[in-house]
C-alpha cells in the first residue's frame, strides 16, 4: 500500500557543490498555504532573497489525456470541468466547440450567445478568485470574502442553468443540456446590476492603497519578448503589454459581433496582472450585456441545441415514444455514432489564456489522442525566472497573481 509509494520527496535538495554556506534552501510546498494547489518550489534563499527556484509539479497528475482515450466524446465533458475548475464552463464550451468543429456541426446563433454569456461568467468567476486570492496572499482577507459573495451568486446562476455549482458539466455537444429557466435569467440580470458596485468596492479596498501598490508594483515583472518565448497567454501576457486575445484574433462562437477592448498592462508585474484582470471582468460584464441584448432581440427563445440528429441526443419525449429516436439515443449514448476521422486544433480564450484542444480521431468511439494545451502548464515554467532575485513575499504574490490552477497544471 503505502510502501509502493516513493518516499524521498523531502530529501530533495539543490545539487550545488560550490554553494556558499550562507544560502539555505526553503521548501515552499507541496502543502504551503500559498501554493493553493499543489506544487513544490524548492527555493535557494540568500536571506530573504531568492537565488534559485526549482519546481516540482505533478502532485495531482490525473492522466486526463489517457482517460480521454478511453471515454466516448460526451463523457470527456466532465473531465474538462476538472481542468481549470475555477472556470469549468469555459473548458466545457471549448471542448464542445472542438468536437463540433470535427463533426462539422453548425451551432445556431442563440446557442452561440448563450455560450458567450456562460463563458464570460466563467471568466469573471475565475478572475474574481484570482484577484481576491492576491488580496489574501498579501494579507487582506476581507476583500476575498466580499468578492466571494459574488462568486456564490455566479454559482447560483450555474445551478439554475445546469444543477451544479462548480464542476458544471454544462452544455452538450451541439448546445446545452436544457434551456435557461426564467429564474436563471432573473439571476443573471440581477448579477449584472449589482456586480459592478461590488467590484468597485473591492478595488477601492486594495488597488490604490500604497501598501498594496508597494507590494505589487515591479514585483515579478516580465518583459514581453520573454513572455512570448515562454508561451504566456491570457491576462499574464496582456499584463506584459501584448494584446493577444483569441477572442479578437480568431473569433470563435460569434465573438466577432461583440464590442470590447483588450486591457493591457505596462511591464507585466503583479499590479498589472491584477489590474488587467479587474478590467477584464468589467469587459466581460459588458459582453454579457451585449449578448443579452442580442438574445432579447431574437424571436427564438427556445433553441438551445443544434439540430443535428446524428450527434445530438433526440428530445426525450421522442425517445419515450418513437422507436427511431430511441435507436439514435442508444447509438449516441453507446458512442456508436460515425465520428469522422481527422484531427483538429481549437482554442478558446480561457481565463488563464489560450486553452487549446488538439483532438485526433480515428473514427472510433473515443478520441485516439486528445491533447490539452493548458495555459498554466506552459507559463508556470517561467516562474523561476520571474522570481529570481526577488524576496520570498514577492514570490508568493507572483505565484498567486499568475493564477496557477493545479488541475490545469498537472492535468
Amino acid at each position: 500500500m503505502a510502501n509502493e509509494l516513493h518516499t524521498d520527496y523531502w530529501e530533495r535538495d539543490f545539487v550545488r557543490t560550490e554553494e556558499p554556506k550562507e544560502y539555505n534552501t526553503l521548501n515552499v510546498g507541496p502543502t504551503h498555504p500559498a501554493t493553493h494547489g499543489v506544487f513544490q518550489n524548492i527555493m535557494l534563499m540568500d536571506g530573504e532573497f531568492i537565488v534559485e527556484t526549482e519546481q516540482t509539479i505533478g502532485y495531482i497528475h490525473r492522466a486526463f489525456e489517457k482517460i480521454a482515450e478511453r471515454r466516448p466524446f460526451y463523457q470527456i465533458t466532465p473531465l474538462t470541468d476538472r481542468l481549470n475548475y475555477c472556470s469549468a464552463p469555459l473548458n466545457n464550451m471549448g471542448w464542445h466547440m472542438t468536437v463540433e468543429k470535427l463533426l462539422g456541426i453548425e451551432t445556431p446563433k442563440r446557442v452561440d450567445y448563450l455560450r458567450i454569456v456562460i463563458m464570460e461568467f466563467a471568466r469573471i468567476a475565475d478572475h474574481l478568485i484570482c484577484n481576491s486570492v492576491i488580496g489574501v496572499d498579501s494579507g487582506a482577507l476581507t476583500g476575498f470574502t466580499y468578492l466571494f459573495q459574488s462568486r456564490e451568486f455566479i454559482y447560483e446562476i450555474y445551478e439554475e442553468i445546469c444543477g451544479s455549482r462548480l464542476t458544471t458539466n454544462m452544455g452538450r455537444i451541439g448546445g446545452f443540456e436544457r434551456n435557461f429557466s426564467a429564474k436563471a435569467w432573473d439571476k443573471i440580470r440581477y448579477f449584472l446590476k449589482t456586480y459592478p458596485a461590488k467590484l468597485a468596492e473591492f478595488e477601492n479596498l486594495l488597488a490604490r492603497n500604497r501598501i498594496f501598490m508597494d507590494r505589487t508594483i515591479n514585483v515579478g515583472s516580465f518583459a514581453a519578448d520573454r513572455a512570448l518565448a515562454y508561451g504566456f497567454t491570457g491576462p499574464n501576457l496582456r499584463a506584459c503589454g501584448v494584446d493577444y486575445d483569441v477572442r479578437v484574433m480568431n473569433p470563435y462562437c460569434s465573438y466577432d459581433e461583440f464590442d470590447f477592448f483588450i486591457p493591457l498592462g505596462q511591464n507585466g508585474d503583479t499590479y498589472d496582472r491584477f489590474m488587467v484582470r479587474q478590467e477584464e471582468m468589467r469587459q466581460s460584464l459588458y459582453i454579457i450585456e451585449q449578448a443579452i441584448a442580442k438574445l432579447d432581440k431574437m424571436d427564438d427563445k427556445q433553441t438551445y441545441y443544434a439540430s443535428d440528429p446524428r450527434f445530438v441526443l433526440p428530445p426525450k419525449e421522442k425517445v419515450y415514444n418513437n422507436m427511431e429516436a430511441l435507436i439514435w439515443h442508444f447509438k449516441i449514448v453507446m458512442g456508436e455514432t460515425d465520428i469522422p476521422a481527422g484531427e483538429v486544433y481549437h482554442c478558446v480564450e480561457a481565463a488563464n489564456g489560450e486553452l487549446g484542444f488538439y483532438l485526433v480521431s480515428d473514427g472510433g468511439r473515443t478520441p485516439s489522442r486528445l491533447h490539452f494545451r493548458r495555459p498554466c502548464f506552459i507559463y508556470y515554467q517561467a516562474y523561476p525566472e520571474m522570481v529570481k532575485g526577488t524576496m520570498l513575499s514577492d514570490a508568493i504574490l507572483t505565484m498567486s497573481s499568475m493564477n496557477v490552477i493545479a488541475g490545469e497544471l498537472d492535468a
Partner: protein
Amino acid sequence: MEKLTNRSRVVSDKKMTFLEKIYLPAIIKGMFITLKHFFRKKTTINYPEQKREFSQIYRGQHVLKRDDLGRERCTACGLCAVACPAEAITMVAAERKPGEENLYREEKYAAVYEINMLRCIYCGDCEEACPKEAIFLTDRIVASQYQRLPFVYGKELLVEPLDPDKRIDVSVRQTDEVRDFKLNKRFAHNK
C-alpha cells in the same frame, strides 16, 4: 512588440499621488469600507437550521422512479452504466417472472442496482441517458458517513417509496415537451 489589434488599452496606473504616498487616506478609505460591512446585514446562512434554496434542477442524490401504478420503471438496459464517466453504477438484470407485473413495468428489470455514491460525480449523464424516465437526480444531498461501504446505495435507498405522498417529484427537471407528452394519454412509452 507592435500592436496586434487596435482594440487594446492600457489600464494600470502606477503613479502614486502625494495623498496615496502618505498611506493614510487610502487606509482610512479602506477602513470605512470594512466598517460599512460591519453594520451590514450578514449574508451567512445558518446552515443546519436554515437551508439555502437549491435550484430545482440541482444534481443531488439519485432516485429510481416508479410509474403511476407503483411499478419500477427501470428496465436494466444499462445505458446509465455506460454513460457514467465514473463507472459508479452496477446493475444485474433479471427477467420478470409471472406474477410480478405489479412490481416491474417491463419484462426485464434490475435485480441489483447499485450506485457508488462516493464515486459518483453527479454529472447527470445517467439521467440524460435513461430512455425510460427511470433514473433522475434530485435536489437531496447525499449525507456523509463514517465508512466507505454504506455509500454503495442499493435499490432500497434508490427506489422511491411506494406511498404516493412520499414520491419524489422530478417533473421540474423535465422539459415542457416531456411534461406535455406525459399529460397526453394518447402517447405511450415504448414497450
